[in-house]
Each structure stands twice: as structure tokens, then as C-alpha cells.
């Protein structure tokens, strides 16, 4: 495993996958009737996590749960501070969200600002019946009144450190690490 110096593996591939499997089960348990469920991953790493959750759900219930992706770049609250990102991902919602149960999926929950942006963007697409939040890791440090419905694991983060989630499609491997802030993301 190629791990940058100073990095500490918190969850290896196996542990990450088991965590996702548990999250999938919890999401299904909350409402046994999953007919209108839609998983929406936040770009970039939330998208693969949403797909992995959907795959676990299919194994567990036999139902194919649709997944979509949300790019919140244009809804960020710090555009005027950090300026534009030249490459923006696209938002792809395969089905109408109005009236559905939507679960937003992201890798790490920190300040809550990304989720605020995601909620605003979702509101421009329609009015879901219910919106829930599922995160693989909660590292604390909220700056907005936002709480997740499903949390894979919670980790303390010291000053100068952050949590890095790697996924197969973007990083070649599935794992969760604690890394120095300047670390590879």
C-alpha cells in the first residue's frame, strides 16, 4: 500500500467496505419500502461511495437503487474568496427528485458547508419528500447546524491533520487515512 509519510491508515479496504455495508443496511432499515429511494453522491468521492452503497443494497434487498451525482462548485459560499475552479463536474440526476426519499452521500463531514451547498442545489431541482445525509466519516468541526443521519465512523482530528478518503475510481484504492493537512488529496 502506498501511503504518504505521516499518514495513518484508519480504515483499510476491508474495514471501509464493511462500514459501507453497514451504512447500506441502516439506510434500508429506516424505511423498508425503498421504492422511491435515490442516492446522490457529492462530487467527487461521494459519487463512488453512493454507487458502492447501491451495490450493497442490491445484495441485501435485491432492489436496484438509482444513484446520481451532485457537483456543488457553483453553490459554494467561498467563490468570492478562493476564486473559480477551472474544471467543474456535472450534476447528473437520473430521475425526478420531487416526491422521492433522497440520501445525500459524502466522504467526510467537516464544517457542513458542502452539505449546505448541496441542499441549496437540490432545492433548484425539485422538492424531495425527505432528504437524509450519509457520510463515511464524521470528523467534527461543524460551522453550520447540520447533522448526519448515518455515520460510518467518527474520528478525532488534531490541528494540522485531516481525513483523506481514497476510492478505487479516483485513487486506485479504497481506504481512509489521517494525513497532514498539506497531504495528498
Amino acid at each position, binding site marked *: 500500500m502506498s501511503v504518504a509519510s505521516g499518514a495513518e491508515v484508519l480504515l483499510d479496504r476491508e474495514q471501509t467496505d464493511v462500514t459501507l455495508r453497514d451504512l447500506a443496511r441502516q439506510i434500508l432499515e429506516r424505511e423498508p419500502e425503498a421504492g422511491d429511494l435515490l442516492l446522490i453522491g457529492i462530487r467527487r468521492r461521494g459519487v463512488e461511495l453512493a454507487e458502492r452503497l447501491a451495490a450493497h443494497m442490491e445484495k441485501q434487498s435485491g432492489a436496484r437503487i438509482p444513484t446520481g451525482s451532485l*457537483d456543488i*462548485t*457553483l*453553490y459554494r459560499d*467561498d*467563490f*468570492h*474568496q*478562493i*476564486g*473559480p*475552479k*477551472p*474544471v*467543474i*463536474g*456535472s*450534476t447528473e440526476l437520473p430521475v425526478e427528485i420531487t416526491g422521492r426519499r433522497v440520501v445525500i452521500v459524502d466522504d467526510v463531514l467537516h464544517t457542513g458547508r458542502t452539505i449546505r451547498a448541496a441542499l*441549496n*442545489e437540490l432545492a*433548484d*431541482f*425539485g422538492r424531495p419528500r425527505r432528504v437524509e445525509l450519509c457520510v463515511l466519516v464524521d470528523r467534527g468541526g461543524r460551522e453550520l447546524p447540520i447533522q448526519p443521519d448515518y455515520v460510518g465512523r467518527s474520528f478525532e482530528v488534531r490541528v494540522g491533520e485531516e481525513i483523506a478518503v481514497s476510492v478505487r475510481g479516483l485513487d486506485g484504492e479504497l481506504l481512509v487515512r489521517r494525513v497532514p493537512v498539506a497531504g495528498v488529496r
Partner: protein
Amino acid sequence: MSVSREGSTSAARANGGSGGLGLGKDLTGLESLTGAQIEAILDTAEPFKEISERRIKKVPVLRGKTIVNLFFEPSTRTRISFEFAEKRLSADTVYIGASGSSVQKGESLVDTARNLEAMRIDMVVIRHGSSGAAAFLADRIPSNVVNAGDGQHEHPTQGLLDLLTIRDRFGSLVGRRVCIVGDILHSRVARSNIWGLLACGAEVAVCGPKTLIPLGIEELGVTVLSRVEEAIEWADVLYVLRLQLERMSAGFIPSLREYNRVFGVSRARLERAPREVVVLHPGPMNRGVEIDSDVADGPWSLILPQVTNGVAVRMAVLYLLAGGSPELAEAAKEGA
């Protein structure tokens, strides 16, 4: 051609101002841009296409920014395209035309702009009859300036939307053969396309009456073709320019009918093309002069996709230029 205000060319400004592309404060032309910068603008335009397909065609990214559309020359398509782009990014916009404004009373360009600055604007989109007007203004006000056509110099957002349309169709601009047909001499659209296409690795030719081809254009690496049949045989893309009707009275061409007979892009001519050829036109068209209706409305035409792409490209340009101040960019980098 992009002229930056004194002291605003630091790396931080470039990063903060255009997403690290180094575009600087303004977009006054494509001549000064690299192929990589142009491709990056086109890449940025991609996700903006989707926003125009949404039910709520609006994202909040330029909320609170004030944009002035300063049109000293009449324009319908470009003006509306910019307005849609601005509104879909949630900017506040005002339109100022030459007639009915203080411009008509003889106010100078700089005075007009300075008065607007005094009302705390953020960006100016300018269309002007004099070549260099956009750069002149960009040099004198701190707001971002976007050239929407200046005299016979450049029309960079038109060039970008044309490049995007060609890239959409063929996947890449590299090695694509594009022949621009018509009045090259007076055309800012031709200039922006030539710079942009060459920077992105396309092959460029021009075709038109000798009186309307600039002398020495071959030195740019552009091929000159004298017959439209040759152009059709050579090209993947025919870029048909609008023939400005006043050129006839100025003696550049004998008559519109004669022009159509020799240089008009017709179905009969295109059907003899040895391979698939697509046709672009910046509009508005003179049907039956430079382009026949069969072609404009036929399977060759990418004219309406051009118009759709125009909004996305302008959204991308406004988005990239509207970035934050250098101090904030630095602070955010440290706090990220």
C-alpha cells in the same frame, strides 16, 4: 491582447481571477491565449451546458456581481447570449446601448466607464466599432472587461463558441481542417477563429474574393484557397462568414448575385464533398447570398448548436474572470 491593470498581474491575481489559468483580468482577444488556456475555457463551458437544460436555469455563483453590457454597436444575438449567461449565473445586469444614452451626447468611452465604475460595477461586456476599444477600456478601469466585438479586431467569445462547436462534433481540434469563407478582411470573427484554431492545433484556410483576403495572411500559417469548390474538397469544417452588404457599395464585390454564384455555399456544391463536411455561420445569415437555405437548414449545419454553445461559453468566461481578489485567494489557500 489581454491588458491587465498595473499591479494586477501577480500570480495570485491570475490564480484568484481565472481559476489558475492565468487569463488575467480581461478577455479582449484570443490572440494572446495559448492552446491550453483555450481548451481549459472550453472544458469549463462543458458543465455550464447542462445548467441551461435544467428547469431552474440558474446557479448562484455570480450572485451580487453587477455586470454592465455596453453596446456601442447594435447586436441581437451576442447581447442576448451574454444576458442569458449573466442571468443564469445570478449576476445583476444592465444594458446600455449607444442610442438614448449619454454616449449619444458625445460622452467619451472612458468617461462612460468611469461613471459606471463610480456606481460600483464588477464587469463590463463591451461591443464597440473601433478596433482595440476593449483593451483600451480594460487598461483604464479595474473591472473585468470582456470584448463582445471591437471593430475589425476580435470577437473572442464568438471564436470560443465556434471552437467548442467544432470540438463537440469531432472530439478534438487537433488536425481539423477549417476553411473560413467570405470577407476575411473586415471580419473580427475570422480573426478570433484564426488565432484560436491555430493555437489549438487545427489547420486553417481562408477562401473569398481576392479583395477581401488580407495581404500576407499566409504568414500566419493560413492557406489561401481561391475557389469555394477547393475549400469544400479540402475542409472538414466550412466557416461561412456573413457578407456585410455595405461591402458591395464600397466596391469590394461586383454584386450579391455574382458573389453567390462564385462563393455561395450551396447544397449542390456540398453534395460533391469527398467526405463529411459541416457548416458554421456566426449569424445573422443572408440566405441566398453567402449560404443557401438548403444548407443552413440541412444536415451539414451546426448553426443552432453554435447558438446554444454561445451561452455556455460566455458563462464559462464570466465565471473564470469573476474570481476573488488576490488577498483573499492567498488567505483561502492557507486556510484550506
